[in-house]
């Protein structure tokens, strides 16, 4: 039976129970993020009226006011509160049957904010890492393949980049730029690419003198084709490992930024933002700290577990 590289990696990966558990957790988190309005929100999931069965999740408030009173039956999400809806009568309530994880200082339901906050964390992690992997692959490949002055220049830039105090620089940049989730993604993405670039460059330096590269050049393949179709696939394993750890790091940085007040602008729910509220009510409001911190911790752990599992799976010393 033909066994590809990724097939072997996957077989190795499956043997590691903790890593597989981490992978399941990530899938679960993504499901929660994608289905967030169906899990937590103040709009009905299902409305059964004369018009038949409909979902209210994507309807505007006006449409809902029109249709809900006429409905025979409506089903609300399991957490029937919107993440941004104020309820000043129920400020800072500890967890109870009504609000499973309590409420924050504006009476917003924490459980609902946790569910919707998953969208922010996961998308920041995903987009920021995509940016830095793309940047790292392009710069690393060119530096490693062409060498010479290009390599010298890129290596120099990488060296400069490595010496930046990362969090300090991100904070300084965010302090002067407008507050937005996209800017956070780009800034985190721009600070992380050097690791991938060094990795890819190293792999290219190692593989370029090999025969298969000379062979593809002999049959007339151009630089781009040799770089991205022939050499790069060999470097993708380590890049994937580094990207997985990178997602964990990006999520950590995003929540730290929100914690320091430089994160996603309000009223968007984010884990770090809820956690930072706890700082104002440190006397008693443990639920403001426990749940969002737990969410951050579990997400980071899941990505780190998968990263470790992958790293061990692609290690050739272990594949034999």
């Amino acid at each position, binding site marked *: 039976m033909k066994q590809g590289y990724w097939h072997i990696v996957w077989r190795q990966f499956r043997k590691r129970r903790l890593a597989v558990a981490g992978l399941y957790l990530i899938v679960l988190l993504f499901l929660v993020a994608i289905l967030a309005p169906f899990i937590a929100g103040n709009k009905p999931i299902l409305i059964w009226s004369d018009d038949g069965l409909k979902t209210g999740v994507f309807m505007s408030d006006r449409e809902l006011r029109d249709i809900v009173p006429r409905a025979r039956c409506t089903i609300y999400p399991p957490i029937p509160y919107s993440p941004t809806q104020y309820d000043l009568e129920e400020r800072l309530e500890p967890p109870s049957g009504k609000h499973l994880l309590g409420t924050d200082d504006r009476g917003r339901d924490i459980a609902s904010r946790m569910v919707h906050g998953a969208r922010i964390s996961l998308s920041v992690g995903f987009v920021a890492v995509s940016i830095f992997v793309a940047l790292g692959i392009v710069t690393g490949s060119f530096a490693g393949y062409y060498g010479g002055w290009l390599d010298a220049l890129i290596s*120099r*830039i990488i*060296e*400069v980049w*490595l*010496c*930046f*105090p990362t*969090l*300090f*620089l991100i*904070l*300084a*940049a965010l*302090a*002067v*730029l407008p507050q937005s989730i996209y800017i956070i993604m780009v800034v985190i993405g721009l600070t992380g690419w050097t690791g991938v670039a060094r990795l890819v460059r190293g792999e290219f330096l190692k593989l370029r003198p090999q025969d298969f590269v000379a062979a593809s050049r002999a049959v007339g393949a151009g630089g781009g084709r040799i770089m991205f179709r022939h050499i790069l696939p060999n470097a993708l394993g380590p890049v994937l490992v580094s990207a997985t750890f990178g997602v*964990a790091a990006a999520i*950590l940085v995003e*929540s*730290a930024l929100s*914690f*320091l007040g430089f994160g996603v602008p309000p009223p968007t729910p984010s884990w770090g933002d809820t*956690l930072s509220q*706890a*700082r104002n009510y*440190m*006397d*008693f*409001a*443990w639920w403001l*700290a*426990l749940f*969002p*911190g737990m969410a*951050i*911790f579990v997400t*980071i*752990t899941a990505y*780190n*577990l998968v990263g*470790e599992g992958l790293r061990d799976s692609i290690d050739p010393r272990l594949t034999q």
Partner: protein
Amino acid sequence: MRTYIIKRLLLCIPTLFGITLVTFLIIQLAPGSPVEMRLRALAGAGMGEEVTAEIIEQTKKLYGLDKPVLFNTTAFREKGIGGLFDARYWIWLRKVALLDFGDSYKDHRKVSEKILERVPVTLQLSVISIFLVYLFAIPIGVYSSVYHESGSDKVLTLLLFVLYSLPSFWVATMLIIFLGGGEYLNIFPIYGLSSEGAENMGAWAWLLDRLWHLVLPVGCLAYGSLAVISRYCRVGMLDTLRQDYIRTARAKGLSEKIVIFKHAFRNSLIPIVTLLGMLLPALLGGSIIIESIFSIPGMGQLAFEAILSRDYPVVMGIATISAILTLLGILLADILYAVVDPRISYE
């Protein structure tokens, strides 16, 4: 060795130049400046528009913000090539070359003075936490490599993994809520480094009070590095224990104690020693997050405050110093490599 060090130090100069240039551009090109902040304060005070316009010009001149950021093209046309560099970055660079980081916008004190008074505070935190990290990390790493694959190794490895993934700002917040007064236990102080009236205490009482204040922040600073370094130590030891000369040592009948501590341990220390070099920037740079959570007036807090109030000279001063420390740390790590491992030489 000396030529190598001199060469490396010279190579640091272009890198430093790049770092300061990028940082300078990021903070100076952004919209919103100290001048606008002052304007907003004046608008609040109900000043007329003409008066404010005049004050803006004056303030700009005072801070040197009336000149362009990178290249002064007007002066270039008038005075030639010398005028081109009559711009903010080059003026700043010229002063820094003479070790003058300028004055803070906020209180007009010297930046170097402001930084120097924060250093001892941060040093207390970082020296104690680094000491504790190495004190615990190395035995843990050695232990779990010697008892590789045993139950206690697995438990320790998992525990360290969990520690590694715990966000320090979460741990700090939880500790403050549950141990720092309020409705739950009141064991540790949560603000600053001394209690009120600490100046009047006796030496012993003062020291105890200080240590008591340091427990939580040092703990939060230390546990992450503890996890990283003991994992390094474990992997290094495992690698060494697989070597042929360890088998030889065992085969010739040396006791397990000597094999592990004399033959294996000393060789596995190499990567750990070099990690010390990497700690240099952390030693003085402090932690923005931990210092601001525990209201500790160290470098991290100064950096955070400077960013919040757009105190450009302070921000640039801290960025430059931490870049220098990082570069020196890398160099130190490379030198330590050659010192502890005679197989490596830079001749």
